[in-house]
């Protein structure tokens, strides 16, 4: 392979990684935009969702990578798996908000954030103690289809990742910009007090943010499983940390920023690994983050929510 061929291949790898980080970063950003809360439970909502997706596929009788489907059967199976995973993940997010965070509303200081860390550990241990610690072989009905462009290989699953991510992002954008609830979300993000006075049901808006963020994490989790063909109780940590970094890099609270931040982190990871060395990945990512924050403290695209002083 030539130098350019390798770099192009790494760009493809990076875009796939980045798409996952973007979807996951949106969950951090949506909740932060409205509550100014960093939701650490999101790490493991992602992890739990990957298991939900696995069980959904197993429910269809798919196991391992040998049950290959094509055509409508494949589309149906994937649609089912995405629907189940996203709804269940969204439900999990709503339950976390309703049970553990709403009672703390109005409590100043880090109580809510610490609670999300606690919830994260509970999810982590529930999976560890019920499913066990072994890596799970992920059911995957997708045929291995590869297209060769010169020296660069593109796979069906990569196209699927990009396609699903693009659809979800456009959908989220339309929701936030065109619907009443989306408008209410933006209003709450700008000034919760004023929005409440104008008749916006803030609690409903918050639940919506949790539902959407977690459902997107669900989509990211299923994509993760289908891309890597494995899941384990431990996957939330690295992916969550990178996605959170992506949200901060793009400007936390800024929906567009989270999308771009995710893609950037993915590209930095793959190209940094290629040009320097993979073992330096985290050092590279966080050095860039620190540099960006030094010169642009609100991230590349600024925080969407103005200071609520």
């Amino acid at each position: 392979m030539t130098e350019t061929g390798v770099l192009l291949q790494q760009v493809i790898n990076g875009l796939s990684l980045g798409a996952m980080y973007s979807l996951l970063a949106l969950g951090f950003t949506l909740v932060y935009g409205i509550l100014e809360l960093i939701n650490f439970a999101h790490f493991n909502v992602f992890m739990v969702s990957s298991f939900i997706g696995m069980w959904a596929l197993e429910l269809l009788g798919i196991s391992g990578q040998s049950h290959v489907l094509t055509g409508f059967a494949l589309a149906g199976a994937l649609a089912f798996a995405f629907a189940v995973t996203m709804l269940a993940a969204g439900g999990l997010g709503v339950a976390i908000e309703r049970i553990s965070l709403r009672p703390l509303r109005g409590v100043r200081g880090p109580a809510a954030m610490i609670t999300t860390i606690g919830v994260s550990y509970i999810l982590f241990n529930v999976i560890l103690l019920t499913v066990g610690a072994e890596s799970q072989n992920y059911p995957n009905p997708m045929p291995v289809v590869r297209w060769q462009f010169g020296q660069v290989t593109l796979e069906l699953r990569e196209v699927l990742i990009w396609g699903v991510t693009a659809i979800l992002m456009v959908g989220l954008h339309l929701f936030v910009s065109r619907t009443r609830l989306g408008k209410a979300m933006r209003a709450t993000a700008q000034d919760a007090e004023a929005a409440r006075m104008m008749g916006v049901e803030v609690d409903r808006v918050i639940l919506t943010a949790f539902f959407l963020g977690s459902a997107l994490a669900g989509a990211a989790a299923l994509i993760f499983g289908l891309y890597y063909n494995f899941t384990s109780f431990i996957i939330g940590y690295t992916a969550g940390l990178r996605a959170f970094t992506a949200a901060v890099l793009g400007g936390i609270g800024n929906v567009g920023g989270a999308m771009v931040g995710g893609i950037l982190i993915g590209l930095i990871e793959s190209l940094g690994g290629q040009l320097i060395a993979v073992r330096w990945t985290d050092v590279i990512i966080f050095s860039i983050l620190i540099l960006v924050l030094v010169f642009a403290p609100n991230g590349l695209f600024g925080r969407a929510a103005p200071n609520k002083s």
Partner: protein
Amino acid sequence: MLSRRLLLISLSTTALVGTLGLRSRLGLAADKTVKIGINLPFTGADAHDAELIKDGAMLAIDNANAKGGIAGYKLDVMQLDDGTATAGQYDPAQAATNARKMVSDDAVVAAIGPQMSGSGKAMAPILSQGDLATITPSSTNPDITDPKFAAQYMPGGKAIYFRTVTTDAFQGPNMANYFADTLKVKSVYVLDDSGAYGVGLADAFQAQAKKRGINVLGRDRLDPKEADYTTTLTKMKSLSPDALYYGGVGQAGVKLVKQSYDIVPTIIKSGGDGVYGAEILTGAGFPAAQGWYATIAAPNVLENPDAAPFIEQFAKKYGKQPDNYSITAYDAALVILAAIQSVAASGKDVTRGAVRDAIQSSHVKTLQGTVSFDANGDIENRIVSVFQITRNDKYPLDDVLHQYKYMGVAPASS
């Protein structure tokens, strides 16, 4: 008032604990019980293989107890887990805590474990100061028993870290010889999983590979908690190596096996005993795992007719097949039992110091042949066996015995 009551309670508690302690010590003398510590990572990625090791050791201990114990001593087991949820695999910090726990219980006269060298490095200094011998059935990092590092791992002065497997000083280089002689590999890319075992094994392999004229095209490190190795593998693919060698255990190994099947499906892929185990078979699955080479730092006893009764009893008792490290664990237990026997026979008290000395001078007939140790605690028999993962549909996926095909002994360096 309150404080006085508290004082009273604490005083009486102390008294109670004191009596209990005394009573248990008296009881010990009467019942004649000794304890054997077992420390393995039952939580995390290697739990399945840890269970196989424990089962092997327990078979020997249970058999001895069924015959009325050893020289009148009933054998008790102190089972400890050095795997933690946060690490997702073995955790050296937990291993150190466990070593302290074993050392602080006088009834523990010897131990079996750990499975992993990373834990071994944390435990050895503590065990050495407590003069408590442990026999590892699987940890192969050579540093722990290397006299060069005696100040670090053997501060007590005597060997306490014994092995019923040989070390990576042989496992890595012998596989490099196999690469050169049998597989005719001309170029290789080397990866490790950043653990003590993985880095050491990859280093030892790499040094011998270079010596044998194999072109080492690159070396990188995989983070076991990371999910994505496509960057590393794409980089490797661009260099077109003949082969990939991986030093490391299952947590990173499963993902490497899966993703390397997608990106570099045709090259020769190999690891050490970290890719010998059920985790690789079930986690990575087929076809991804098909064709991977693995080694173990012990002879392949499972196909030896002498092992047949052991395998039969093992399968009957636990409802599953043993792997070769079940055998080295069984052998480790036999060595400890023989040591207790010989101490008791000589009329001395069965103390950990006496048991250590007896282990040091062992010549015990085991499944893998007569086990004896050099002055550092390493086994004198230095055989590295090569396997290749070859799917056998007639047996369950996690059946190590039938899914790893024995290829022969890796040639020793001259």
